């Protein structure tokens, strides 16, 4: 699990150290294949986005990375070792935190209790306190509502809470699943600005989005998924100009 500074080509991606790589991943729900041979890599310090339409297998890929689903074939390698067979809590402990699709905050707990649960596996009380401050700085709205039941927050606030809760696990790699879902445009901008800030503070981000335009604006590199396979990949700036992508996903 040591982060090597090896110069072998397979350990480098886009001039960065590979933090996470997924190779030839196949994931099935029963007999239905949701992901069919996806290969991707995330370099340290990048924002990588996985875009595609509904049902393309984006969320499934993310859930496989965080250990919620077992792949049928293929491997997930994080900092040089395979995590495909690890249980979810070991993956969180290794530094991969997941902010799930549909937010899935704990509605009957307060904002503070939700954030505390994000730090469930951590034993460094001082670090947790520091991260709580950091999250509340990122999302001042949560500070105002800290003792409120999370179920009473607005959709945007719940999304902030979902992201903040994942950050409380002190992730090296943050997995974000559809953070813009159901949010007003103003809030989408706010969330994506924050994602950039999070990256600038040193956390690598793998972002799954249906809102391809917003995702490409913030990301460094993008993979386009369609029906469980990789359709396209490239630097986000190039893909945003790509005709095919524009037509299919950006409504152009």
């Amino acid at each position, binding site marked *: 699990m040591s982060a090597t500074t090896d110069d072998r080509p397979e350990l480098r991606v886009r001039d960065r150290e590979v933090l996470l790589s997924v190779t030839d991943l196949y994931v099935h729900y029963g007999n239905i294949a949701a992901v069919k041979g996806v290969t991707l890599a995330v370099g340290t310090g990048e924002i990588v986005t996985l875009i595609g339409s509904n049902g393309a297998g984006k969320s499934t890929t993310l859930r496989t990375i965080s250990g919620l689903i077992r792949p049928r074939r293929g491997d997930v390698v994080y900092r040089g070792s395979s995590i495909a067979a690890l249980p979810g809590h070991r993956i969180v402990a290794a530094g991969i935190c997941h902010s799930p699709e549909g937010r899935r905050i704990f509605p009957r707990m307060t904002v503070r209790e939700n954030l505390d649960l994000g730090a*469930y596996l951590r034993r460094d009380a001082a670090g947790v306190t520091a991260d709580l401050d950091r999250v509340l700085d990122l999302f001042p709205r949560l500070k105002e509502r800290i003792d409120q039941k999370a179920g009473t927050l607005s959709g945007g606030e719940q999304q902030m809470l979902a992201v903040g809760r994942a950050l409380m696990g002190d992730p090296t790699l943050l997995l974000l699943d559809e953070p813009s879902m159901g949010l007003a445009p103003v809030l989408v901008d706010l969330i994506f600005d924050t994602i950039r800030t999070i990256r600038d503070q040193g956390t690598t981000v793998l972002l799954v989005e249906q809102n391809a335009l917003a995702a490409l604006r913030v990301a460094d590199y993008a993979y386009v998924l369609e029906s469980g396979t990789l359709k396209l990949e490239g630097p986000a700036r190039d893909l945003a100009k790509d005709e095919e992508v524009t037509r299919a996903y950006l409504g152009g």
Partner: protein
Amino acid sequence: MATTAAPATDTRVKNGDGTGRGGGDGAGVRRRHRLGDRIWPLGFALAAVLVFVLYQWILPQAPAGVSDFFQTWLPMSTINQCVIWATMAVGLNVVVGYAGLLDLGYVAFWAIGGYVAGWLMSGFFGQWQINFFGHPAPGQESGIHLSFWLVLPLAGLFCALWGVIIGAPTLRLKSDYLALVTLGFGEIIPEVFKNGENINGFNLSNGVKGITPLDPISTGPFAYLGVPEELGPFDETWKFVIYVLIATFAVFVSLRIREGRLGRAWLAIREDELAASMMGVPLMRTKLAAYAVGAFIGGIGGVAYASAVGGVAAEDFAFSSSIILLAMVVLGGMGNVWGVMLGALVLQWINSNGLAKAGEAINQAVGKDLNFPSYNFLVFGAILILMMLFRREGLLPETRTRQVLREPDRGGAEPADAELEGERR
């Protein structure tokens, strides 16, 4: 128990106006919480002391009319049953109320606990003669005779072990399937005891005859303070003290665990299992812990029950007992220990005494001859339906539940979530 009811209504009335509000009154929520924290333990202790003083010292001196009234409506044996059932309900609440795992076979742990008491506190295993601070009846020295105080933790641990054995393969199941498996487990264990008089020549449970009588409870050093040296079948008032102590232990343990890390993990699993696992909560281990703690409390409750009725018999452990316990948890307010206690005390009183005596009174008044106790499930069913219609959160709901049932979930109400369902499976 009437004394506990008074503060209950007080708090609820005070809460009444605060609950309808939005989440803005955080300070109010906290103050209410602290008030509830103090009132219930104090009320419980006070009620216990009052009951003890009343039955031990006042009633024997009271005029015949008064003591007859209490003998009829609230005899000591009924109070003891209520307290023991409340202990069990608090144990089941750990599994159902805290961790959100529906358990329809909780009676199995009760049975195991009862039989551990039967094995270790009677002359049943006549082939051995072991006495460790036990109090065998004169002439019954053969068999295993351990002290009641030792049997309690042993039975608890044995049940916890069984909880883990049963839980390990089944807890991977989703809620409905888990409920079915626990239902089967609750049926199998009593059947094993019912038919266990000859397992390859070994008598495990004495079959339908059950194991009886049990050794009396030794009181050790307290004998010097005027407590009888050993508590047999007729020392019900003193046994009440012991059962209250056991119930207090169950309440204390579940409240302490709830406030800690494990309790938060249970809560998270109950709220959203998938999200909890994303936070790094190890699902299996955490659920097994809930099972083990619940089973431990069920086990000590089983020992208490066996000592109260003076033996164990397989037919005491019917499926209906699991359901009654579940009804107690739901009626009282899932997740709130004090609510569950209250629910258990009320339901068990109806079950063991109240309905029969009320029936007699009604029969006398109208000149009919209806067998009211045989309608107890009708009454329970009616109570549950009324509760679901008018007070879904239970008599004394958990603060969290109360708020969510009264306040709409704003985030969830947004249309975006409709789309979510499509991709989830």
